[in-house]
């Protein structure tokens, strides 16, 4: 088997992979390769035909395919190599990528740096342990989106949606526009899982009820779905007897969470964060394996693609720095970042003392809805940043930027924590 070599190999040609490859190329790396399993680059954007993409990146409102196209064109113009219909089967710690496609069969690529950009998958029904039959007509929202937007078929006519993730909200509107009747969106948590703007534009504008603290407790119909039973849940998420309501429907869409696809990362020994299910990274978005970077939804689930592109750009640039020779390696001293009270996780999870960028951007999610609260940053128990925010919700990603000055004189023995405080 021949081994090709590339300075930077990007695993996945979705929004993250494209932006990372472009950034690496712009940082002076001539040979950048994207390996993409689908028939075309662009990833899940290709089926997101609604608009609302690019407000941050391009200051205009684009559809998913339009947004992807801007990156695809740029990557092509920059001469980024791209192997489509290609499945990566494994990556070694020495950054040898084994992949497979129709033309080459199994082949290997030695990468100078690897950027993980495999995206995420949807949580399936099985993981939810919903009792009942297993008929046709139960789809993850993204699968339904693909059937509608790419294949041109309607999955069903009477729809119940479980989970208020963004794809579910978007599909509530999409199915309604295609003539289906969306009866209700049930959400187990006491808050909407998706963006506020989607809640308004996809549900409220169409009069689709959102039932918070509700879940599906039974699925009926042996061949095709015939109905579901909804019930209210208590604080622990357990259904409350006596609150059951029957809905007839032929379709149940699930929008109950996204899971970063880190099977390759796990196999190669990348350390994963138990909360994000994505790699643990430093401020360069580098994993515990030197020269292996991660960005986009494989790192943590984003709500806006603009943030994915921005983050992936940093990963690409840092991969380029790694390849062109990072200033003297030695022992890397790292400061751990802790998700304190009210914070589910942070990305990055640690900051190098010898960092290459002056400022450090930290993204995180809160674990409940907070109003009139403060984002506080602590260093060794001392509050070094305090910023008021009117509303924070788990469905919207938050960020803080730590200026260089705050990190100066750090030796690596410090601890930095982010908390949400009332005052």
């Amino acid at each position, binding site marked *: 088997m021949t081994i090709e070599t590339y300075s930077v190999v990007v695993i996945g040609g979705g929004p993250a992979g494209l932006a990372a490859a472009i950034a690496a190329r712009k940082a002076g790396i001539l040979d950048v390769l994207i390996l993409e399993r689908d028939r075309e680059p662009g990833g899940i954007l290709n089926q997101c035909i609604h608009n609302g993409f690019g407000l941050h990146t391009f200051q205009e409102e684009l559809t998913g395919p339009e947004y992807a196209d801007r990156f695809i064109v740029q990557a092509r113009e920059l001469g980024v190599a791209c192997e489509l219909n290609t499945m990566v089967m494994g990556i070694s710690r020495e950054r040898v990528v084994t992949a*497979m496609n*129709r033309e080459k069969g199994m082949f290997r690529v030695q990468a100078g740096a690897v950027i993980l950009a495999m995206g995420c998958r949807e949580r399936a029904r099985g993981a939810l342990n919903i009792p009942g039959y297993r008929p046709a007509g139960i789809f993850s929202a993204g*699968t339904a989106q693909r059937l509608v937007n790419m294949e041109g078929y*309607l999955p069903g006519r009477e729809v119940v949606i479980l989970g208020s993730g963004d794809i579910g909200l978007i599909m509530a509107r999409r199915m309604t526009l295609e003539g289906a009747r969306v009866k209700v969106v049930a959400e187990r948590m006491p808050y909407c899982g998706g963006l506020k703007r989607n809640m308004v534009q996809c549900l409220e504008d169409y009069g689709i009820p959102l039932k918070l603290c509700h879940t599906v407790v039974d699925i009926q119909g042996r*061949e095709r779905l015939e109905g579901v039973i909804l019930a209210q849940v208590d604080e622990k998420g357990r259904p409350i007897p006596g609150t059951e309501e029957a809905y007839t429907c032929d379709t149940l869409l699930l929008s109950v969470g996204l899971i970063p696809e880190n099977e390759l990362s796990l196999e190669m020994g990348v350390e994963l964060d138990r909360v994000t299910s994505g790699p643990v990274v430093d401020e360069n978005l580098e994993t515990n394996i030197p020269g292996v970077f991660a960005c986009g939804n494989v790192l943590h689930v984003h709500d806006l693609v603009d943030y994915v592109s921005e983050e992936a750009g940093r990963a690409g640039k840092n991969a380029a720095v790694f390849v062109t020779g990072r200033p003297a390696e030695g022992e890397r001293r790292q400061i751990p970042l802790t998700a304190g009270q009210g914070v589910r996780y942070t990305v990055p999870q640690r900051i190098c003392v010898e960092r290459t960028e002056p400022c450090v951007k930290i993204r995180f999610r809160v674990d409940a809805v907070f109003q009139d609260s403060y984002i506080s940053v602590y260093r060794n128990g001392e509050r070094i940043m305090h910023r008021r925010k009117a509303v924070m919700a788990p469905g919207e990603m938050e960020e803080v930027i730590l200026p260089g000055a705050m990190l100066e004189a750090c030796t690596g023995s410090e601890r930095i924590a982010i908390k949400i405080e009332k005052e």
Partner: protein
Amino acid sequence: MEQGSCLFLWMGQGRITIMYDICIIGAGVTGCAIARELSRYEADICVLERCEDVCCGTSKANSAIIHAGFDAQEGSLMARLNVEGNRKMDRLAKELDFPFRRNGSLVVCLHEEELPVLQALCERGVRNGVEGLRILSQKEALEKEPNLQNTVAGALYAPTGGIVCPFLMTIALAENACVNGVRFRFDTKVMSVEKADGFYRLETDRGMVESRYVVNAAGVYADVFHNMVSRHAIHMTPRKGEYFLLDRRAGTHVSHTVFLLPGSMGKGVLVSPTVHGNLIVGPTAVDIDNKEGTNTTREGMDTLAAQAGLAVRDIPLGQVITSFSGLRAHEDGHEFIIGEPEDAKGFVDAAGIESPGLTSAPAIGSMVAELLRERMDLQEKNGFVAKRKGIVHPLDLPEEEQSALIRDNPAYGTIVCRCESVTEGEILDAIHRPVGARSLDGIKRRTRAGMGRCQSGFCAPRIMELLQRELSVGLEEITKSGGSSRIVTGRLKESTMERSEKNSQEGEA
């Protein structure tokens, strides 16, 4: 709807009904094992199945265990066929190329005072003819299976216990039977069986079928057919068993099949690896009335969660990828009923086939075939094909062979199901081989596409496309598992789409 060598003839309004030598009702593992054994002989054989594929009832929803044979009552048919079936597995799995592994089983005893019961179980097993049984001390048990509860008092070790893929086993038997001339008629539900002069008349929802002999392998419905022809009524209760299937990440949590010392309702909740590297936990045991009641229940799942950890600790139940339920065909006497009722000669029951039915299937197949050979004076046929090759999974091959395969047929270079690494080549093979797949579930059972952690979220549209192309049907016709289980209801607002397509074409011109 018929798959096999011969076409069914239809002439105008009136049908020419073919008289079969043997009709087998039910294409589960029992029916298929019998069909395969009978296909050694010169006979016109047909399998009638109400579903769209083989392996759609109890055969698809069970523990996937090849039992050693210490459980069944001494001297029972169940005990004999269990041990016989177990012994046949190595050769059968080799001949028909389906996954089977003797991983060994452990019956765990948690309380010192129950050790005599474990000892008695061991002795029963020895008398049943089970080889290699041994009582392990706590230390030995924990050495063999480190994730057992530390408090285990002892365990019965059965090295002949094994695990199998029940889908691939049933499919392999069916394919091999088909290659040897057995016809399979799917989507054909037998409504009644009636004794006529020297033959039986089977009324189906697709017309009348006549047959000199009938084999009743109808699973939970076997009592219904039996009672149509015999006054010696039998009665079967669907006994529901629910299961959790866990991600491959959890697949090495145990390496043996771990049972708890049996109680009154069967063998209790077991924990076992599967041949495909997942972990299975189950079943529950609840008697129900509904022979179609394959739904899972909240109570069942709670029971599983509560009992799973009794023998094995730290089972990562957060990694459940799916749950399912199956119905055991529990006969009142808890015994296999195999043979002709006194008052219905030519009608052969294979009824009450509950656990260890999967294990016993090869032995049941031989027993029924032998019975019919004698009764019908069947002659062995020339050119019986004993071997069958399964679907090639490129990733199981050495690298050079993989590359050669892809060079010959590039479809093996395209991964369709990313979770289970199933290629397009495998899916095409599944569709076109004898008794081929016609639905998403049919593809899933043959190739595992859609069985992984994303549960077909990504690959379902791709597989639908392949089914559509290869079977030349509309996407609307494609089902999850036959019948009315269609995946999509139709094209998007058809008229609007056509209009916009037309407009764009005009625009281009």
